[in-house]
């Protein structure tokens, strides 16, 4: 089962199906295949956003500070932690150990720089059990075909097995883990 975990436009579902994705999670619209992404600088913001996120399938937090990241990892109501260029510097050894301890899924945007993806792949081998790479497309030409996604990860230093695992298995596993809708 091939799942695209981040689409920023509802009209892209048909395009995603055409590319081979069996299921797509869309940002912002409440429903079975919906997600809410919010940025947070402190615990209070996470708490407020979690309160208003009822009806969404996935609650994704993009922490901007160390404190927010720590709270997002510990908080069970947050399903994913979103990482990109702006907050990658937060992933230090202590935080990575906490992610491993809590088996928190981490989502990396494919639009991030190669440095982020290269290091995320390295972290994926040791610390992050459920690592997901998603396209977060706003338009159809920003979507990533599965074959390209796998080869993009291989070029950045991943094994073929792990690239397949992160593309095919981890999104489904992460969704089942947070099956409380």
């Amino acid at each position, binding site marked *: 089962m091939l799942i695209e975990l981040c689409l920023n436009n509802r009209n892209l579902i048909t*395009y995603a199906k*055409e*590319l081979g994705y069996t299921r797509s999670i869309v940002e912002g619209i409440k429903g079975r295949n919906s997600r809410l992404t919010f940025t947070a600088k402190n615990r209070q913001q996470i708490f407020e956003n979690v309160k208003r996120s009822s009806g969404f399938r996935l609650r994704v937090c993009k922490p901007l500070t160390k404190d927010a990241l720590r709270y997002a990892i510990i908080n069970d109501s947050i399903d994913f932690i979103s990482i990109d260029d702006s907050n990658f510097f937060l992933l230090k050894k202590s935080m990575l150990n906490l992610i491993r301890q809590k088996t928190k899924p981490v989502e990396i945007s494919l639009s991030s720089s190669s440095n982020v993806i290269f290091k995320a792949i390295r972290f994926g081998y040791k610390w992050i059990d459920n690592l997901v790479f998603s396209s977060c497309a706003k*338009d*159809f*030409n*920003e*979507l*990533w*075909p599965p*074959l*390209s*996604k796998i*080869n*993009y990860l*291989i*070029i950045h230093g991943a094994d073929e097995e792990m690239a397949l695992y992160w593309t095919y298995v981890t999104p489904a596993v992460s969704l089942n883990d947070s099956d409380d809708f």
Partner: protein
Amino acid sequence: MIQMIFDILIFVWLLFLTMLFFSKKQINIKKIYNKRNIKAKRYIIFYIVSENKYFGREEIESSIRSSVKEFLGRMWLDISNPKLILYIDNEKRGIISTNRAGYKVILASIPGIKEINGKKALVVPLRTTGSLKKAKKLLGIR
């Protein structure tokens, strides 16, 4: 006298065995060839998702080449050397030829193509084959 003949025979026999041992040892040193022939051809079958109906072959090839160059530089562009060898306008499907060393590079850099000739487009790789005959068969061409 007989003892001496025996000694000589044994000496010759041992000499023969020693020669055989060394000669066998020399034969056993084999050159290790790279079994993966990186020059072997690879064909990538793709289709284009776009609102625009027709694209020129040169436009598609230049956008693929510029995408590879942008992603991994001129060196990998020269190694992979992608060429559009077949394109069906009606179905928006085609075949890119490359080699075994560079097909992964092309597959990885294809999503970098956001526009073809100023119009939004998405190039989707479908499958990679080792022969043009198989690629054409998959496209439904004889």
